[in-house]
């Protein structure tokens, strides 16, 4: 009944994520939904292993599994770790398989105009910052990455900036997300398990827990 307070996770202690630096890859368009990021048929799994190959699958391959034109298929974007997207990215289902697929493809940070909430929360749980910037700034970043696939993009979570070439973009990171990533406290299981007694008290105070 009382949860043990296991510190750290099996895949190592929660590190801090102050900054992500790497080459970029642009995926353009508003309302990119989680069915597009990972089609439902690839959810028939009991682990997240190997999901990276299925990221954007139906946009990347035709019915005969022949590659289509998609940034994730382009040689020049292989190895990219900063994904640049537009508005309402990640809308739709709550499937964590979506950020898991992106992460396992190689993405460590996403910069976009806006994000669906559950998607952003899922990213945070994986230590992936979802950083927002204005439409103009995001489009400029996408153009830059398109023209300079080998150039590094710095996503500075702490300073809320995105830097590339000679450009510094004012970006925003949700307060709780910034604190969690910068202070390395995004392992919410460990954080909350430490308060087990208070949880019991709250539970006992609720009228519907008498049963």
């Amino acid at each position, binding site marked *: 009944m009382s949860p043990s307070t296991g510190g750290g996770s099996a895949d190592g202690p929660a590190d801090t994520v102050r900054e992500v630096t790497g080459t970029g890859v642009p995926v353009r368009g508003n309302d990119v939904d989680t069915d597009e990021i990972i089609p439902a048929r690839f959810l028939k799994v009991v682990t997240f292993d190997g999901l990276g190959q299925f990221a954007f699958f139906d946009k990347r391959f035709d019915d005969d599994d022949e590659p289509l034109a998609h940034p994730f298929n382009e040689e020049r974007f292989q190895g990219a770790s900063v994904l640049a997207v537009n508005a309402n990215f990640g809308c739709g289902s709550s499937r964590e398989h979506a950020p898991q697929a992106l992460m396992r493809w190689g993405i460590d940070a996403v910069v976009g105009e806006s994000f669906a909430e559950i998607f952003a929360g899922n990213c945070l749980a994986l230590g992936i910052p979802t950083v927002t910037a204005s439409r103009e700034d995001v489009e400029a970043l996408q153009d830059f990455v398109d023209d300079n696939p080998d150039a590094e993009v710095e996503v500075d979570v702490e300073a809320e900036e995105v830097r590339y070439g000679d450009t510094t973009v004012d970006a925003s990171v949700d307060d709780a997300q910034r604190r969690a990533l910068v202070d390395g406290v995004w392992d919410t299981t460990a954080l909350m398990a430490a308060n087990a007694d208070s949880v019991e008290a709250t*539970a006992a105070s609720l009228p519907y827990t008498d049963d």
Partner: protein
Amino acid sequence: MSEGTLYDAVWDRHAVTELPTGQTQLFVGLHLVHEVTSPQAFGMLEERGLDVAYPERTHATVDHIVPTADQSRPYGDDAAEEMMAELEANVGEAGIEFDDPTTGRQGIVHVVGPEQGLTQPGMTIVCGDSHTATHGAFGALAFGIGTSQIRDVLATGCVAMEKQQVRRIEVTGELGDGVTAKDVILTVIRELGTDGGVGYVYEYGGEAVEAMDMAGRMSICNMSIEGGARAGYVNPDETTYEYLEGRDGVPEGEAFEELKAYWESVASDPDAEYDDVVTIDGSALEPVVTWGTTPGQSVGVSEPIPAPEDLPADKQDTARSAQEHMEVEPGDTMAGYPIDVAFLGSCTNARLPDLRAAADVVAGREVHDDVRAMVVPGSQRVKAAAEAEGLDEVFTDAGFDWRSAGCSMCLGMNEDQLVGDERCASSSNRNFVGRQGSKDGRTVLMSPPMVAAAAVEGEVTDVRELEAVTGVEA
């Protein structure tokens, strides 16, 4: 910030403490579990050597992958069988109650919770599914979570959340004949945008919502996420209490009265303060159908499909590609759009009142020769209740396939999928490209009576006109 709303009240009652991130640690009153998003969470728990903290506040069902035709074990699809077996092992070990198909209670997670009285006002409810807001119809604070958060809830009975703003959506007037809750929520999403609700919880109210039964309220809350809002709710009232009284999970007698006092106490105050208020004239609505590939791309059935260039700049590209995918032309109406498949099901619209409304339209008619049509009840109990009323015969006589409960063609994780570029009239919640199992498939979202009308006519049809022509009473 809002003050005096149900959201504030339920939040305050469940807040455990503030976390170093600034988030609130929120106690979870009911954690609903299904087979798709939970196995990895159970795996993470095992890796850390943690137990399920509150198995008695956790309830499981199987819905996404379950076949709706042949349900004998092992399932024909190996991957589906593996997921089912994994769920059985996980809930068995943790001591979590599980509505497996042999119990007669199995069904879509957002149908079984309410119908068993597990969903109650003033609760916090989470599930690894974005349509969890459905339960908000009871005045619960209910929202979808990801798998890492499922791990949190399993291990601690809590989620880490930031408090959001509250937008009151007031639906005034009386809905016209043939206009349903589905038409209301599709209108809300079109008017406020697919991302208009980001950062908000939606409180639905007003005369039209108050007049709705619980099924209608669930349809509305269900699609909150399609408007970007992670949670949506309706304040509990007599309709809510009447629905709950006598259900399995609800106590009787004095205990019921005590609980009811709590339920009444969490409802929003008459002078509650909201961060935003939006009013929609419910009496002006007609049946709504989607023309595009997001739930916000909808139109009244008699209205012209908009030209992309008439939409806001940031919506134009999406609209162009959507119209190309759907093969629709600006200026046309959706009425007359040919369909190949009719799907009546999903957590949005597969409850008994939904099936009744569709059956009223189907009665005495036949499914169009070019259409394959199926009804997938939301749960085994819905199915049994519908059969007790003879609805199954109404549907099968007309040529519908009468299936067993599951998510089915809403997202095509079982055998029920669109093939090639089929066009589907669907009572589900998402018209994303590829959603129904074929990346070339086309989905037109609409209410159950409108699905029924499309099934018999072979094209999108204004159900009100169908009634006028034939004189069949809805």
